[in-house]
Structures are given as structure tokens and as C-alpha cells.
């Protein structure tokens, strides 16, 4: 076995090189890194495996002997004392938190397919991975409780500040920032309910009603030029919150009529604050660990608001549900796992389910507004399926082009630019020995926009997702919802909401955009930077 791998390595090193990846690697440190996209130098590439499978295989052990050490992984050198955190500091650092996307592109240019980011204060070392095959391998070797890099600040909130609430019952801390057995037990309880295809389908009609209300709302808030107002994103947030509260809390919050001070506006503001703070608290120097900074106080207050509003509605929904006959998600969760699990699941859904969905929708609408031909094709498909009747479960499955458009926008502009795992065991990645505990960040934004993984990557081509032939692109390059046991728990609902609202809007309006093209930035979702002023013309 060992000899075979050695030969493989030798073979690849001696053979002619593929220019793109390796060239960069060599540039990086002048050594042969053994990372070569076409020739599969990394020994373990030969045998991609399913989840669990690699756990007991001898492959990792064998590979270790030929793998280079962790110290040799290229990357920006941390300064003594300051580490690498200073690079993200305002004014003095050249890495902007808002433009992590561009930072990552240039890191790859400079260092190659895997880059070490060591010395971030208060965090474990990170490894950025830009090779889809390595992503596949790490995902496939996952055990039953993969460890997702926690947000230390949320961790602190759940496990220190509000310990009384989240630890009052066993395995009830939720899914975000929770790990190991506790995570696994909670996830199992919830995912059977939340991820079942039928659970989402039963919300088709109510979600379509919310989308109808949103279409009506759009027609009302346009200015005299028929353009959406500068704060259109906030309006999309309202739609998202309205849809999610319908699913998670069995309640129509009435967000479209939300005024300052109402529960729904407080919830929207709190979720916004939460997300703006998370990026800053996590990537910048963690002063909050020493004393409660202003931002940290805002952050905790936001979380408290979300928690209290959520609990209020869960409680109300539970009271109501005693009389109602139909089985909603909330009731099913209560039946399957108890009310506390349902409440915490709802909280987690609010933490990560509102602005991810709404930023995706904003991004999709903006991209569509730049492409009238795509809109026409979509309109045609939608009319053919719906034929002027209301939406029914399963309709979206008849709309492959719509699904493809959503996938294509999420490929080019994934709302979450990267995904990650904290290694639960020593692993060889890109031919380097990566120690347990390292945070491995899969750079999906970079991978899904690279020519190696997608032909004509810079072009918007929904058709690429409709090709029947497999092997058209690497399946692990673009994974907007992740993969495996820790895949996005709200995926079914997010997809239902997104498909429904895009369908309704395209059906009602022709969208145009008449301003300067928008750049994207991380805010902290990857989203168009600037007011989304779309001209909405009734069809």
C-alpha cells in the first residue's frame, strides 16, 4: 500500500505539470507542493469516499508518511504578538472584513490551493482550502458529529451568559455553535421534521400567500419612476421574516405593516444587528473577551430580543395548537421532541434563516434585472406551469429553469462565501498534515468562480445546471447549503421561499436596473453593495 502511494507521488512529481494550480504553488514557496489539479498528486485523491468510510481506512495513515508538515503550509506570516489579526484591522491592515472575497482570491493567487492563516488572536489556526476535490474528501471522511467552527461570541452567549436557559434541559442548546453529542442529539430530533421534503411542501400555499402580499407591497412602495426604494433590502427582510415566522412560529407577524417599535421591526432590527456584529466580533481582535465592548453589548441585546420575541410566539403558538388539528412544523417538533426543542430550533432559525434568505433573494432579483432574456424565459416557464392558477405543492419541481437560475446566482454570488469544519482528527489535506482542531474553511466563492471547476465561470449560464451529463463540473465546488450531517437545516424552507417569491415577482413584473452596476461586498452576507433600485414594470 505504502509503496503504491510513493510511486504515485513520484510519478506525479516527475510528469509534466499542469500550469495553473501548480504554477501558483511554486510561486508561493518555490517548492513542489504536490498540489496539482489534473494529476491528482495527493495520494488520497485516488479514492474519494463516502461519509464515515474514511474513518477506519488505512489511507490516512499511509498518506501521512508522504505528507508535508503543517509548518510548511504556505500563508501570510503572522507577526510576533500581533499575529495576523492586524491584517483585518481598519486602516493599518490590508485585509478588509468587507472584502474577504477579494482577500481570498488574492490569497489563492499568491499561495495556491491551500493557505494557512495562523495567529488570529483568540482563534485556532485556519486553513483556507480552494480545491473542490479536497473539500469532497474532507466532507466524505466526516464522522457522525462533524464540528463546525463555532462563532465564539454566540458560543459565549449560549453557554456562558444564558447558560441557565440553554442548559436547563439536556441536549437542548440548538444547532448553531453547538457540537458533539449534544448537537447530534438535537439535530436528529429536528432534522427528521425540518428536512423532510413533505414538511416544506405543505407550506407551499401559505408561503405563496406571503409572496403575493410582498408583490402587492412592491407595487405600493415604488416611487414615481416605478423603482423600488433605497431600503428595498429591508423590505425583503420583512418578507423573509414573515415567511419564516409562518413556518417556525405558525404566526403571520404582519411584517409588511411593521412600524418602528413593533415586535416584527424589533425582530428585524435585532437580526440585522446580530449579523453585523458577528462579522466584526469574530474577525477583528476579540476585545469583548476582556470587557463588554459597545458592539458586544449591542450583540447581546439583539440576541436577547430575538430570544424573547421567539419565546413569546412559540408559547402563543403552543396554546393555539392545542385546539388546531393540522400538523405544522412547530407542532410536529413539539410532538417529536418537546416544546423547548421547538423553541430553540425556532431561535436558531431566526438567527440564520432571515437575512441569508433575503440577501439571496436580493441578489437574485438584482441579477435577473440585468438580464431581460433570462426573465422572459423564466416568465414563459412559469406561465406554462401555473396557467393563472394559484401555486400548488410540486409546481416548482416543474420549473427546472427557475431552479437553475437560483443555483447559478448562488454559484456566482454565494450568500455565504465559505463553509468550514473544525477537524476532529488529524487529516491530510492537499498533501499537508493538518492537525486536529484546525479550522478548515472551504472557499466556495473562489472555487465556484474558477475556470477549473466551471467552464466560462464568469458567465451567467443557468443552462449549465440543466445538462444531463454528469461530470460537467465538480459537484463540491458550489455548495450553497453545505453537505452531509451538518447541511443547512433550513434548506427545504429556504428553497421553497426563494423559488416561490422569485416565481411570483417574475410573474408580476418585468425588472430593469438603470443605475451604476453594483459591486458585491460582505455585509456579512455576500450581497450587492448599494441601494437595490429595481424598476418594476407590471406585466
Amino acid at each position: 500500500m505504502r509503496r503504491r502511494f510513493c510511486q504515485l507521488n513520484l510519478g506525479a512529481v516527475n510528469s509534466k505539470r499542469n500550469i495553473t494550480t501548480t504554477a501558483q504553488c511554486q510561486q508561493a514557496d518555490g517548492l513542489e507542493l504536490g498540489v496539482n489539479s489534473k494529476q491528482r498528486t495527493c495520494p488520497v485523491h485516488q479514492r474519494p469516499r463516502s461519509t464515515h468510510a474514511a474513518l477506519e481506512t488505512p489511507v490516512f495513515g499511509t498518506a501521512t508518511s508522504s505528507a508535508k508538515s503543517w509548518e510548511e503550509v504556505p500563508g501570510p506570516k503572522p507577526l510576533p504578538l500581533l499575529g495576523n489579526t492586524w491584517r483585518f484591522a481598519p486602516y493599518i491592515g490590508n485585509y478588509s472584513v468587507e472584502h474577504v472575497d477579494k482577500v481570498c482570491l488574492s490569497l489563492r493567487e499568491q499561495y495556491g490551493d491551500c493557505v494557512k492563516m495562523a495567529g488570529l488572536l483568540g482563534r485556532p489556526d485556519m486553513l483556507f482550502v480552494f480545491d473542490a476535490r479536497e473539500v469532497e474528501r474532507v466532507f466524505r471522511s466526516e464522522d457522525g458529529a462533524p464540528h463546525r467552527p463555532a462563532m465564539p461570541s454566540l458560543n459565549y452567549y449560549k453557554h456562558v451568559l444564558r447558560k441557565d436557559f440553554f442548559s436547563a434541559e439536556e441536549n437542548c442548546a440548538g444547532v448553531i455553535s453547538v457540537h458533539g453529542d449534544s448537537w447530534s442529539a438535537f439535530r436528529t430530533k429536528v432534522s427528521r421534521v425540518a428536512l423532510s421534503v413533505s414538511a416544506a411542501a405543505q407550506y407551499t400555499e401559505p408561503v405563496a400567500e406571503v409572496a403575493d402580499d410582498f408583490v402587492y407591497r412592491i407595487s405600493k412602495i415604488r416611487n414615481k419612476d416605478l423603482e423600488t426604494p433605497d431600503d428595498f433590502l429591508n423590505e425583503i427582510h420583512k418578507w423573509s421574516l414573515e415567511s419564516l415566522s409562518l413556518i417556525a412560529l405558525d404566526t403571520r407577524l404582519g411584517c409588511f405593516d411593521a412600524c418602528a417599535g413593533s415586535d416584527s421591526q424589533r425582530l428585524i432590527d435585532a437580526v440585522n444587528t446580530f449579523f453585523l456584529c458577528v462579522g466584526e466580533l469574530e474577525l477583528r481582535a476579540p476585545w469583548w473577551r476582556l470587557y463588554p465592548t459597545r458592539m458586544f453589548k449591542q450583540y447581546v441585546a439583539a440576541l436577547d430580543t430575538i430570544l424573547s420575541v421567539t419565546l413569546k410566539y412559540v408559547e402563543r403558538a403552543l396554546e393555539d395548537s392545542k385546539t388546531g388539528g393540522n400538523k405544522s412544523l412547530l407542532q410536529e417538533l413539539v410532538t417529536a421532541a418537546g416544546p423547548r426543542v421547538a423553541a430553540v430550533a425556532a431561535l436558531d432559525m431566526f438567527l440564520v434563516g432571515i437575512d441569508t434568505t433575503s440577501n439571496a433573494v436580493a441578489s437574485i432579483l438584482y441579477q435577473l434585472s440585468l438580464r431581460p432574456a433570462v426573465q422572459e424565459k423564466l416568465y414563459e416557464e412559469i406561465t406554462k406551469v401555473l396557467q393563472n392558477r394559484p401555486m400548488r405543492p410540486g409546481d416548482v419541481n416543474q420549473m427546472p429553469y427557475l431552479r437553475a437560475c437560483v443555483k447559478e446566482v448562488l454559484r456566482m454570488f454565494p450568500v455565504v462565501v465559505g463553509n468550514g469544519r473544525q477537524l476532529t482528527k488529524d487529516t491530510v489535506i492537499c498533501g499537508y498534515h493538518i492537525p486536529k482542531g484546525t479550522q478548515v474553511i472551504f472557499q466556495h466563492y473562489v472555487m465556484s468562480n474558477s475556470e477549473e471547476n466551471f467552464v466560462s465561470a464568469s458567465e451567467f449560464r443557468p443552462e449549465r445546471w440543466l445538462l444531463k451529463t454528469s461530470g460537467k463540473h465538480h459537484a463540491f465546488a458550489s455548495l450553497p447549503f453545505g453537505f452531509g450531517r451538518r447541511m443547512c437545516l433550513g434548506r427545504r424552507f429556504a428553497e421553497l421561499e426563494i423559488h416561490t417569491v422569485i416565481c411570483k415577482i417574475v410573474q408580476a413584473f418585468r425588472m430593469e436596473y438603470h443605475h451604476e452596476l453594483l459591486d458585491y461586498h460582505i455585509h456579512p452576507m455576500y450581497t450587492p453593495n448599494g441601494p437595490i433600485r429595481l424598476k418594476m414594470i407590471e406585466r
Partner: protein
Amino acid sequence: MSLRNIFRTVRSTHSYLLRYNYLGASFSNYKSVVPLSTNIPALKDEKVKVTFVLNDGKRIETEAKVGDSLLDVVVNNDLNIEGYGACEGTLTCSTCHVILKQEDFDRLPEEASDEERDMLDLAYGLTDTSRLGCQIIMSKDLDGLEIQIPETINDARS
């Protein structure tokens, strides 16, 4: 101020939660929540034969209850297939990937859903007659079904 409010809410909810707390859910609960079979009712004691052909050529013949998914069959019969069904049938992984014979593939009552297809795209060694085991529901028509477990899942055991 807001903090006090929360704790008040938490406290009141807490008492509520205590009253209605089911300590863990039994498997039967899950069944009622997410029926694994989509259209065929699980008839009592009706069994059919299924054969799993592992990568090393080993054949496992077993009985399956009508209405169970292939994943249920593997789990309920303790078939030791490493890594099979990691996500517990929630369509978030592709570890229950199976390869069918063309004629079996064609006679399945339902085509793969979009959700299943999205996951199949991520399956290792995808073929034209690949499906996910968690989505194949056993029926009387499928008696004697023979399925191939692709290489990646079981060769780790050797």
C-alpha cells in the same frame, strides 16, 4: 430592563415546558412525524426479499417490510454496511447511494425528486441507474430486488 423581560418570559415558558415536556421521542414518534413511505401503506407483516451486492461480491439476502425504505432495511436488519445512511434519510448526504439494474430502475414507481437529484449529483461514482436508498420504498412489486452498493461505502471495511 429587557433582560428582566426575557427572564420573565423564560420563567413562564419554563413552567409551561415542564408540563408539556416529552422526555425524548420514541421511534414511533418519528414515524408519525415523517412517514418514510410516500404512498404505500405499510401492510402488516408483508415481507419481500432484497439482495444487497457489496463491492467485494459478497451478497446479503434479507427480508424487507413492505413500506420500508432501503435505508430502513439496512438499519432494521443490522446489515453492517459501513457509513450507510449517515444523515438518517434526510436527504443531506449521499451515503445510501445504490445502483440498480436498468429494468429495476425503470420500474420504480417514482422518479427521483429534485431534492434527491441534488444529492445524487454529490454521490461518488454516480451511474445512470443510481438512486438513494432512503428514497426507494419497498413494495410487493419489488420482491426479489437486487441492488449494488457502490465501491466507496464498503471497501473501507477490508
